[in-house]
């Protein structure tokens, strides 16, 4: 219809500054990668531990892990982001709270990573648990029977297989974390969605902006997918046929 197309917009200068819109998008892409990847590392670590604890024989630990999962997966990410940013610091002692709010380096980034990491950790934990439980009980028995302690059994026998089994769902989660990182704009991280809003506001070329951003997100998800496929291939156990035929 009567939309005014302008594909050259990316190379134009922003209204009040030296840089071009392309520079904005590149900065945004950088922050998106930083948030997503850092949060992913955190999610894997926490999720691995919490998921393992959910299968632990100690009731107390398992209960703690269950609470963790239920808390972080039952509230929308956007709302959690807000709670971490605005509500949690107010619960802390005044000095610490002020430090976090004013002087902590990269405070939006840290909050976003913390929030996204914990949110994703709950999902990763569920998958780790499913992976552990999908292994025949005999594997645990066999580990214990040759004299491993329970932690050793997890370390050498159960987790290496569990993680291999859950690579496909982990792949989805890894792709998701790039997409979910877009919520970080809500607390002012200068990531891709943030820059897109900024650019569309500044340039009034919304469709070009969103198209570019969509393509960038697609690239993230695609690369994440290929990367995980590579890992899956590398870690494939010869002769082992996954549960599904």
């Amino acid at each position, binding site marked *: *219809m*009567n*939309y*005014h197309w302008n594909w050259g917009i990316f190379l134009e200068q*922003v*209204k*009040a*500054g030296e840089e071009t819109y392309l520079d904005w998008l590149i900065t945004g892409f950088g922050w998106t990668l930083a948030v997503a990847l850092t949060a992913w590392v955190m999610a894997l670590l926490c999720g691995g531990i919490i998921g393992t604890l959910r299968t632990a024989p100690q009731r107390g630990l398992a209960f703690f892990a269950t609470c963790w999962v239920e808390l972080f997966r039952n509230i929308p990410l956007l709302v959690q982001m*807000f709670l971490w940013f*605005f509500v949690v*610091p*107010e619960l802390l002692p005044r000095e610490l709270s*002020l430090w976090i*709010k*004013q002087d902590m380096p990269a405070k*939006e980034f840290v909050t976003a990573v913390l929030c996204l990491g914990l949110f994703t950790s709950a999902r990763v934990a569920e998958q780790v648990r499913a992976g552990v439980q999908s292994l025949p009980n005999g594997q645990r028995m066999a580990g214990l029977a040759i004299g491993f302690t329970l932690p050793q059994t997890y370390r050498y026998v159960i987790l290496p297989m569990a993680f291999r089994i859950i690579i496909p769902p982990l792949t989805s989660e890894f792709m998701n974390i790039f997409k979910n990182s877009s919520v970080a*704009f*809500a*607390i*002012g991280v*200068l990531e891709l969605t*943030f820059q897109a*809003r*900024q650019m*569309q*506001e*500044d*340039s*009034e070329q*919304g*469709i070009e902006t969103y198209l570019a951003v969509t393509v960038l997100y697609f690239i993230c998800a695609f690369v994440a997918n290929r990367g995980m496929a590579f890992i899956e291939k590398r870690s494939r156990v010869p002769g082992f046929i996954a549960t599904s035929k």
Partner: protein
Amino acid sequence: DTLAKVKSSGSITMGIRESSYPLSYLDDKQQPIGYHIDICNRIVDAVKSKLNLKTLKVNHQAVTSQNRIPLVTNGTVDLECGSTTNNVARQNQVAFAPTTFVTNVRMAVKKASGITSLTQLGGKPVATTTGTTSVQLMRAHEKGKGIDFKEVYGKDHADSFLMLETDRAVAFVMDDNLLAGLIVTSKNPADYAIVGETLNIEPIAIMIRKEDPQFQGLVNTVIRDLAKSGEIDKLYAKWFMAPIPPKGANMNFPMSDKLKELLKNPSDAPAEQYNRK
């Protein structure tokens, strides 16, 4: 064109903002109300009589600052009654009714901080809302040159104000009418003040599709008549100088000289013309 479309469909779609206090927002019953909504209703009435329609169905489509322009261009929204700044870039995509409100970009601070000017903000966190260009305006202002602002972004005005409230920022740079609205509804209105240099003057106007002379003409006439008859002053007083829903707060925001002057001779000149140095 719009009038033909309205005639054939028997309905017109108004774009509304849900929290552009007090220009366009929702009351407790989710009905859009506000200064611009009232003006738009007049326009709708005029459309109705012009087209000789007995009934005209009015749809309300909530819009955001991201989607309002695409929604107007793609035909979803016929009449955007929000709080859109009229500027040159936007005029590439859409057309504007004559300016009905003028806002000044200034900053809100906590009185206790003692801040009164841009020059005191060096090294301090300054809140602004994502998608707005306040920071660029600060940098561009002569007093802002060379000062190192640490900008922090809220995703909307309520969030940005919350940053000021929770001491994440010492100042919040925004349209003064919005600041005034946020302050009167805050928990301790007396704690805050709007201070400092005017960074930009922005004409706010109702938005319509481009290259639609008939509809544009009708809209222009309605607003000119409102201005001439002085009715627009009554509308202004109703929303800016008296208690308004939902909480009955009074903005106490007198009409600026700029707007008074402008209403004498309504025009759709973009922001750039007001801020020429």
